[in-house]
């Protein structure tokens, strides 16, 4: 087992490596910033008029949900990056070095946090431009919401780390992400209130953590009744991380170059 200082130092080196790469991959950078912007504009102006969001303007209802979706998918960079590292044999190099076993993954998940901060700035900018306002929320509630978002992003980075390590190519990682995980975000209260859904789907949506996350942020940012969503969100984050981080690390130990 590597000592903690070793793990921290290795994580820093690798997080730095991941961040250095980002501006050199313009396609990735564009996906990261333009895609969420497109989603906000699409939902606010195309679908928004036809969606009944109760007493709220749709943009106010939508922004917390769409930010949750974007931040959760921020970890997708990790899935793509790891599957590429496996495919190119870079993981072999790392595994043959006397470095921490967890650092390749913690380096990834921490650099995702930095990227997610960047993404938040872009999302807030486009949200405010589209007419979003905080309603009845204190500075502390806004900040708690941001902390929660970054933790959600972190938990999903581990899920995507596992996806990346199980994918033989970045293309496979891409299709797993967009056919299995992406639809999950739609079967939730991210875009529309769950009450409007038919039986069966509604119960599924209500149990979906994306609903819990979105509703938690709505209670923090636009003053909806809080229920248990905020603390349940933290529980979900802890549970997802506790399940997927060890799974990803154990997969990393045995993963072979394809």
């Amino acid at each position, binding site marked *: 087992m*590597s000592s903690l200082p*070793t793990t921290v*130092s*290795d994580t820093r*080196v*690798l997080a730095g*490596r991941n961040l*250095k*790469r980002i501006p*050199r*991959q313009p396609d990735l950078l564009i996906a990261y910033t333009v895609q969420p912007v497109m989603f906000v504009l699409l939902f606010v102006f195309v679908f928004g008029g036809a969606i009944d969001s109760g007493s709220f303007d749709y943009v106010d209802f939508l922004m917390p949900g769409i930010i949750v979706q974007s931040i959760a998918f921020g970890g997708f960079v990790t899935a793509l990056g790891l599957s590429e590292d496996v495919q*190119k*044999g*870079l993981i*072999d*190099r*790392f*595994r*043959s*070095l*006397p*470095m921490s076993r967890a650092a390749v993954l913690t380096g990834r998940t921490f650099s995702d946090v930095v990227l997610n901060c960047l993404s938040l700035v872009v999302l807030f900018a486009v949200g405010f431009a589209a007419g979003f306002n905080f309603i009845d929320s204190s500075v502390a509630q806004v900040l708690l919401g941001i902390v929660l978002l970054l933790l959600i992003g972190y938990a999903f980075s581990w899920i995507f780390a596992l996806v990346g390590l199980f994918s033989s190519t970045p293309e496979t990682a891409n299709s797993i992400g967009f056919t299995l995980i992406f639809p999950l975000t739609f079967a939730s209260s991210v875009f529309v209130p769950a009450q409007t859904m038919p039986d069966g789907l509604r119960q599924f949506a209500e149990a979906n953590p994306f609903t819990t996350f979105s509703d938690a942020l709505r209670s923090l940012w636009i003053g909806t009744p809080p229920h248990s969503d905020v603390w349940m969100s933290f529980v979900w984050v802890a549970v997802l991380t506790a399940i997927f981080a060890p799974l990803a690390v154990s997969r990393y130990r045995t993963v*072979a*170059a394809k």
Partner: protein
Amino acid sequence: MSDDAILVEGLEKSYGSVKALCGVDFAARSGSVLGLLGPNGAGKTTAVRILATLLEPDGGRAEVTGLDVRRDAAELRARIGLAGQYAAVDENLTGFENLEMVGRLYHLARPEARSRAQELIDGFELTDAAKRPVKTYSGGMRRRLDLAAALVYHPPVLFLDEPTTGLDPRSRLSLWDTIEGRVAAGTTVLLTTQYLEEADRLADRIVVIDHGRVIAEGTSDELKGEIGGERLDVRLEDPADAETAVSALTGMCIEEPKISDGSVSVAVRQRKGMVAEAVRRLDGAGIGIDDISVHRPTLDDVFISLTGQAADGDEADTQVPEEVSA
């Protein structure tokens, strides 16, 4: 025995029902180059991956500088360098950044990692490209960088898995020079290759593996010696003279000359004076010679004879039935 930097005994590894290694033994003395030779899928890469702690063996023993690949994996990793057939460097980092990163992951302090990176960049003639992302590099430059990354921490043992596969001849020669330089400095090298010329030039000892088993072992000369001496090939002006040529040459060769397609092939004990004598004999018999050449056995011949993949030649006969059943 303590002199062996690499020691492998009874090594076994299966992938599902496929046996990649079925009890392989080999050893490399400290400071020597061991060539692992074999066709694709023979188990060479599996052996290297086990020694580099990337794969766990199913059975047997594997040690590097006396450290066990299972028990002492963490310590062992600080003693090895690995350069693979797929140049494992980050395409989006520059050459310098790649080497600095590897240095930092060996836990060198930043200034130390940077100066070592610069030293290697200069040593591997990558100075002009140091600040360019690796995706702009040629194949040869990538391999040099990959090898440089393996050498960051001055490892006493170096694993090179098909280091020159896919390289142009010029880059190959330059990489060979570099590897020879490391060996001269005392590094032990385990080299896997499909190129017999590469094994011939670099390896002190060669282990031939096929279907997960060691089928021959020795120096290049020993292996060549095992399949016989030199051969004289004579192409005749008129193929109809072949029988006459055989009787003219019979006295000077160690086994019955062979005829094929207008040529006569003669096994001789040593080449000295043989060409002149063959010419005299054939001339005396009034036979016209189109071409005459001396053929030394190469590692290719050894390889073909051992792995039974020969298209012609009797020496492979015993191996052929096994091939068919497989």
